[in-house]
């Protein structure tokens, strides 16, 4: 298990979650947790996913970025440790 945080930030639109989830399903990435909110009209989503079986984290990260460009949101993939280290003692 390799936990990765995917964040999606941008202007709200129809089908953002569907697009991202479809891509993840096609690439064998299991979603462990999703939270989402709208702040001042902006769509904010965070997913905790398991990228343990993903061959190239680079590709995953790059392709999600491209999907983000297509639908007008910013998508980032980061290993979970950076958040754990910063916010947990």
């Amino acid at each position, binding site marked *: 298990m390799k936990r990765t945080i995917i964040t999606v930030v941008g202007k709200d639109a129809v089908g953002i979650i569907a697009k991202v989830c479809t891509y993840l399903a096609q690439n064998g990435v299991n979603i462990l947790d999703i939270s989402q909110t709208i702040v001042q009209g902006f769509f*904010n989503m*965070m997913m905790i996913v398991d990228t343990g079986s993903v061959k190239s984290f680079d590709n995953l990260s790059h392709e999600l970025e491209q999907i983000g460009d297509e639908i007008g949101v910013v998508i980032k*993939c*980061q290993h979970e440790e*950076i*958040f754990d*280290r*910063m916010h947990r003692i």
Partner: protein
Amino acid sequence: MINLYEVRETNQMIEQDNLDVRTITLGISLLDCIDADLEKLNQKIYDKITRVAKDLVQTGQAIERDYGIPIVNKRISVTPIALIGEAACKSPEDYVTLAETLDRAAKEVGVNFIGGYSALVSKGMTKGEENLIRSIPEALAKTDRVCSSVNVGSTKTGINMDAVRLMGEMVVKTAEYTKERDSLGCAKLVVFCNAPDDNPFMAGAFHGVTEADAIINVGVSGPGVVKHALTKVRGESFEVLCETIKKTAFKVTRVGQLVAQEASKRLGIPFGIVDLSLAPTPAIGDSVAEILEEIGLERCGAPGTTAALAMLNDQVKKGGVMASSYVGGLSGAFIPVSEDQGMIDAVKAGALTLEKLEAMTCVCSVGLDMIAVPGDTKPSTIAGIIADEMAIGMVNQKTTAVRLIPVIGKGVGEMVEFGGLLGYAPIMPVNQFSCEAFVSRQGRIPAPIHSFKN
């Protein structure tokens, strides 16, 4: 489990407040390269650096991608070259060949700076060390990425005034050798008192002889993050202010610790230290001066600046030490003038002077840093400024440093542009009274009484 708010906070620090890891610095010992034959020595140095550091840059980039945190610089520090070259180098020119080899190796592995063209002469100079010091102007003029430092004093040994006088001359000579580039050579030359062996920051990084064969040291940054956090506690008490700085420093340092451990694991090289410094850049919102202004000063340099800086420095350390198992290097707030937009603005506004900066160096790391002075400043005056700064370090048992740039052909008020992370600076006035007779005295200033602790 990590929540959305925490993820947003981290990413806001990275995207809006310039949070980054300033440098992964790979320290490499060159002690096993020593040879009496200059050609062989050069070859061994090149081979060792390119072998040990071959994966440094790619590894740094991979860590950046995995965690989404920028790692601005990947750098190398080596054993002080004066020691490595002593057996083979009979003249300053011989040492210059070693500088050129370091430069070539740095370019081959893709690091932007290599530190360690250094001599440690806090009590006395060997012939080789003197040759290295005399070679610095030519070495820095002929290379692009080599950084040089000379330790001329310590709390234990006192101040080697012969070396201080010589460095006054060498700073001016380095300025002259690189005058067509606004005396850029001096931006890569630091004079130290109590220089640390494990400093990851340039231009003063070198791999001390107390260190292992290779080691990973990491320097964090984050002035923008601290400033942003402080905007939320305007008007609150000192207790709240300190608590906010500590918490922020903790978070910033944790990222540095993670990157250091990860780089160490992936490169198979032991982790040394995290340097807890607040290192500014010329980018807007990445300034230590702006933190001081957020604390309540109209401009950096106003009365109260030294007290505010002392507090800031202390809180950064208190928050940082809990975040990392090993801290070291310089660890504190940096106050380089040309690399900090708030400092530049303060100088332009007439709020910040050389003398105030000197006072500020008593309470923070490191010293008079990246300060442009008129090109006609006398070597003895530069030596006097160095001696003052070394005395502060010696008596306060802390690291102090001087990185002055006498800009040849330019005078007070003119601007000088160094480019990139080195930034730009207005030329500051220097006290015109002479210290010639003082710095002309031979020998050294003895160690202070409180250094005798045995």
